């Protein structure tokens, strides 16, 4: 065991040692001593790994461990500072992502990279359009886009502009886009971060099909159960260094977590406080978000954690955006028994409700600004003396946020866009908590954040409740809803269709409500479509 | 009573002089309509040559019996005006002669080359045939070229030297800057010719600011009322002005109307002199109510 924890010696051209007992399949892609520095900061050091055909190789690690960076090196999006690659036994130098794609290496980015004004089909075939003579063959592209999406278990019109899609739909479109290219090595960087179990299942089935065809698959996820289920081998990174590579069969999620964070992680979810029975702080009656959600009625009690479950497109995000005045909606909202109207985010903040968006890049953070600016943006009046911003107080707030939320960064003057995904999420949390809200609506609170950070976020949510605040958690990860919430409402096609509580909070029960059919039937129907 | 229509197409008021043109044209239109019942006068302004060609087409569409046109650029507008003529309208060209002179029935103009010549003659005489002067030009279009060429022709043979020349675009602000820089650049300037009173205002201001005494006088042009007033009051910096009155458009309209309604034979050329306005005759050219 201790031998495995130390990184392998850089072996030059020699066959890289991997501590796997069984016979090693012939490597499709190999990395030799890869290092990457941004400026003087080395974020990845001396990584040597081999990826085999017909194998799902998972990479796990904390936020900022360097997973995405490694994947970008393997797919030509970044050039390594040191080290080399070989493909099918031959040394290669990747000259950009296009070159990599030509060699059969495709990357599904962690971040959504689609042109917002183009349609799904147009994005999928961007740069490799199908033509008939000189003209584009849009009919064929649309058809194949539908097929590609269907293979992932989604039905969606291919001629909708991407800017009109939800994050999850964009994620699926992006996966489909990668998979229509001819591929031998497919890298998934957190493909399921915004997917619900049903879509995740469909994706996994698709991955198994590819695996059967001899494709090498690299898979990054913070959902360790998922990793356990799908991966053949698991590599763990920490602080840019290789920690271990083991067969998945020999590694339980707990072990992965321990290797990732370097210590034992006990109890992912905090102890649940007893279900509060006090007066409701938020009552919503017959609320509509035209086009997305209708007839929503529910109440949130003081100190309660209320979950919202549902499939992609169920309308959870839109319901709450409308409630908070961020998009059109109507219906009755009572806060603390008083009927109020919220016209914009500020109204909500003044009433003590904040909403943390699921789209942290598009709606949550100013990627081109530094951390301080982002942190204090929503609560700037608390950092001002008259009109003047108190920079010293801002700096202090940043220091506190970095500690409180365990934001891992190389340097405080970094731009928000340079943080790893999980750390961006923590920054967004910190930003909204500065408003000291009574009611917090968190949309996908742990999207893309590592298990250690998740534990922190859960603790944080529990602590909010303990202080008598109330939290709504919208999540596609049922495990976390079940582990965290007092009560879960389930939405389907824009309506609240079910409520589970206590013992009834099981994945099966939720899926039944969310799909409208029995769990097995739902799985079967996705299977048929795929 | 027969219905007759005169169309008047002139440049938009983009600087002082054209502003004067627009003023005189609109005033004259009212006067003519009062004077001749049944006569309709339509005045249209255009910001540039292409727009003026459009306006001519539109006037033709409306049906006009005579056209009074002060073309932005006569070279450009020759064909469009020819087209109006081919519909049978009486054509009066003002100020800027067309390339094909057979198109016009009546030509009323100030005299651009004459403006340059008169100014040159005055400068030559006043400086005693010797001195360094600077020239501030208008916009790079043919009128400016004619004036400057004639001016240069006029000072030929004397010891008067044009030590610098720049475009001031017939704009006060640009002329101010150019003059400031001239004053920095040249230690001694005897006189300034800037061919336009709008620019002359700015030139005087720049000289005043620099507190320079070497400049003996400034010759502008066009007959702006403030400048004529200065001449009248004997301002030593503005001893003269060279007339190039925007009221020529009114003259043209008047004659055209007389020809059209009164059937007086008016064909031919009417050239208004580029009269030198001096202290003596200034009061004849001072129109208190004109905006220009």
């Amino acid at each position: 065991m201790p031998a495995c924890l130390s990184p392998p010696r850089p072996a030059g051209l020699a066959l890289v040692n991997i501590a796997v007992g069984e016979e090693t399949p012939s490597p499709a892609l190999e990395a030799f001593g890869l290092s990457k520095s941004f400026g003087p900061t080395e974020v990845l050091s001396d990584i040597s790994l081999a990826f085999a055909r017909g194998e799902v190789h998972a990479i796990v690690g904390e936020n900022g461990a360097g997973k995405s960076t490694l994947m970008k090196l393997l797919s030509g999006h970044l050039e390594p500072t040191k080290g080399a690659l070989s493909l099918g036994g031959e040394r290669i130098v990747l000259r950009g992502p296009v070159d990599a794609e030509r060699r059969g290496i495709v990357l599904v980015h962690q971040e959504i990279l689609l042109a917002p004004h183009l349609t799904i089909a147009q994005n999928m075939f961007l740069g490799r359009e199908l033509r008939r003579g000189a003209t584009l063959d849009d009919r064929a592209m649309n058809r194949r886009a539908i097929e590609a999406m269907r293979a992932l278990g989604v039905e969606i019109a291919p001629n909708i502009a991407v800017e009109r899609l939800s994050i999850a739909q964009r994620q699926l479109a992006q996966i489909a886009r990668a998979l229509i290219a001819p591929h031998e090595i497919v890298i998934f960087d957190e493909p399921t971060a915004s997917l619900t179990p049903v879509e995740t299942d469909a994706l996994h089935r698709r991955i198994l099909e590819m695996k059967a065809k001899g494709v090498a698959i690299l898979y990054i996820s913070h959902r360790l159960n998922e990793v356990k289920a799908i991966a053949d081998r698991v590599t763990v990174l920490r602080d840019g260094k290789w920690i271990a590579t083991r067969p998945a069969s020999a590694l339980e999620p707990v072990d992965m977590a321990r290797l990732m964070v370097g210590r034992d992680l006990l109890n992912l979810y905090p102890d649940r406080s007893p279900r509060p029975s006090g007066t409701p702080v938020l009552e919503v009656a017959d609320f509509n978000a035209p086009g997305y959600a209708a007839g929503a009625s529910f109440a949130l009690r003081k100190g309660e954690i209320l979950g919202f479950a549902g499939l992609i497109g169920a309308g959870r995000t839109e319901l709450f955006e409308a409630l908070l005045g961020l998009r059109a909606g109507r219906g009755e909202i009572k806060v603390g028994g008083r009927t109020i109207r919220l016209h914009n985010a500020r109204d909500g903040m003044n009433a003590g409700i904040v909403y943390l968006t699921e789209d942290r890049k598009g709606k949550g953070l100013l990627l081109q600004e530094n951390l301080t600016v982002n942190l204090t943006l929503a609560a700037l009046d608390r950092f001002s003396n008259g009109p003047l911003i108190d920079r010293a107080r801002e700096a202090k707030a940043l220091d506190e946020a970095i500690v409180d939320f365990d934001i891992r960064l190389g340097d405080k003057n970094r731009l928000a866009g340079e943080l790893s995904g999980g750390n961006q999420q923590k920054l967004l949390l910190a930003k909204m908590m500065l408003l000291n809200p009574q009611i917090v609506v968190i949309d996908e609170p742990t999207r893309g954040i590592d298990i250690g950070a998740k534990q922190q976020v859960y603790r944080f949510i529990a602590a909010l409740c303990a202080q008598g605040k109330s939290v709504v958690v919208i999540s596609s990860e049922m495990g976390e809803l079940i582990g965290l919430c007092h009560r879960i409402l389930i939405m389907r096609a824009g309506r609240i269709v079910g409520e589970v509580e206590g013992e009834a909070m099981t994945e099966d029960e939720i899926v039944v409500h969310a799909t409208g059919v029995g769990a097995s039937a739902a799985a079967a129907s996705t299977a048929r479509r795929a | 009573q027969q219905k007759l229509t005169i169309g008047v197409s002139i440049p938009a008021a983009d600087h002082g002089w054209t502003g004067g043109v627009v003023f005189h044209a609109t005033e004259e239109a009212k006067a003519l309509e009062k004077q001749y019942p049944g006569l309709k006068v339509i005045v249209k302004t255009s910001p540039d040559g292409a727009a003026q060609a459009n306006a001519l087409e539109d006037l033709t569409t409306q049906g006009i019996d005579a056209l009074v046109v002060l073309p932005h650029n006569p070279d450009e507008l020759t064909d469009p005006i020819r087209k109006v003529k081919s519909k049978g309208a009486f054509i009066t060209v003002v100020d800027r002669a067309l390339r094909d002179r057979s198109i016009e029935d009546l030509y009323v103009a100030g005299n651009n080359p004459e403006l340059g010549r008169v100014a040159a003659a005055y400068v030559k005489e006043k400086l005693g045939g010797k001195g360094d002067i600077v020239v501030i030009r208008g916009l790079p279009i043919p009128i400016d070229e004619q004036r400057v060429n004639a001016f240069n022709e006029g000072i030929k043979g004397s010891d008067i030297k044009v030590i610098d020349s720049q475009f001031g675009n017939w704009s006060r602000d640009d002329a101010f800057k150019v003059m400031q820089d001239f004053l920095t650049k040249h230690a001694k300037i005897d006189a300034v010719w800037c061919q336009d009173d709008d620019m002359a205002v700015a030139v005087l201001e720049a000289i005043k600011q620099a507190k320079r005494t070497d400049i003996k006088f400034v010759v502008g042009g066009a007959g702006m009322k403030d400048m004529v007033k200065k001449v009248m009051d004997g301002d030593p910096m503005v001893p003269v002005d060279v007339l190039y009155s925007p009221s020529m458009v009114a003259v043209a309209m008047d004659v055209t109307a007389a020809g059209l309604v009164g059937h007086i034979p008016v064909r031919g050329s009417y050239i208004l002199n580029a009269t030198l306005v001096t202290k003596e005759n200034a009061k004849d050219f001072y129109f208190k109510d004109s905006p220009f």
Partner: protein
Amino acid sequence: MNEPIQSVRSSLWSRVDLGAVAPFAALAALLLLGTLVSPRFMSVDNLSNVLTRSAFIATIAVGATFVITAGGLDLSVGSMAAFVAGIMILFLNGGLIENPVLLIAFGMILALFVGALCGLANGLTTTLGRIEPFIVTLGTMGIFRSLVTWLAQGGSIVIKSSELRSAYRPVYFGDVFGAPIPIFVILGVAAIGAFILYRTAYGRHVTAVGSNEEVARYSGINVTRVRTITFVLQGLCVAIAVIVYVPRLGSTTSTTGLLWELQAITAVVIGGTRLRGGVGRIWGTIAGALILEVIGNIMVLSDLVSEYLIGAVQGAIIVIAMLAQRSLSRTR
């Protein structure tokens, strides 16, 4: 899960259509206004005049649609037009070729060549030099304008031979089946533009580059080339406009094409193209150019407004047209 998708799709369709239809609706409203204001407005002569003269701006604006869709901007088109026209006329005056028709044909080819070259210069400076297209084309605007002034030595450049002039005249004044030739030019340029933008891979790439440059780059699109070519297309469109323009006025001066850039951009934006790139509408642009021309025409035909205030009314109408368009597309 099927119902919401369906409903999104149908509402999407109706919305897209309205957005594209809006400029035409505005145009129709203006036509109505014109009819009310002047009985002569709806005459064939007047309408054909308006259509014919919109040819310059419409043609240039088609090029601008490409540049803007790709996230660029070209302020130099007006002075480029003057410059190309100057070169063309000087060539015609050179009289290297006896046959006037052949001479004119070569003159046209030269114009296209010079236009493309000017566009290329703009394009390469912005893309390779990585300078804001606003600044680059503001610079070249000054450069082209100065070059014309210099070529004309402050005066104007005129086609000297009257034989040549009359041989060339029909390109603007002539008609085919009763419709003026410039109308065919507009239709031709727009049709080709629409074909390129909507039906070819290049057009798709133009939109992608304007929508998200980084995504385009990751998709293997040569962003530099795509952007540069939009400027070349713009140059070609300017040249085509010049080819139609020269026979109309037979000359060019340093004031030719002044403010055409603003008109072209306005036509593009009124037509529904996104000023920040990513959405381009060729036919909307044509409608936009017509709207501008019709407004001017109505102003001249009507006697409602004092001469001094025409600019104000035109400005107000443009803003109102956009407002109407917005409210139209917002009601879905």
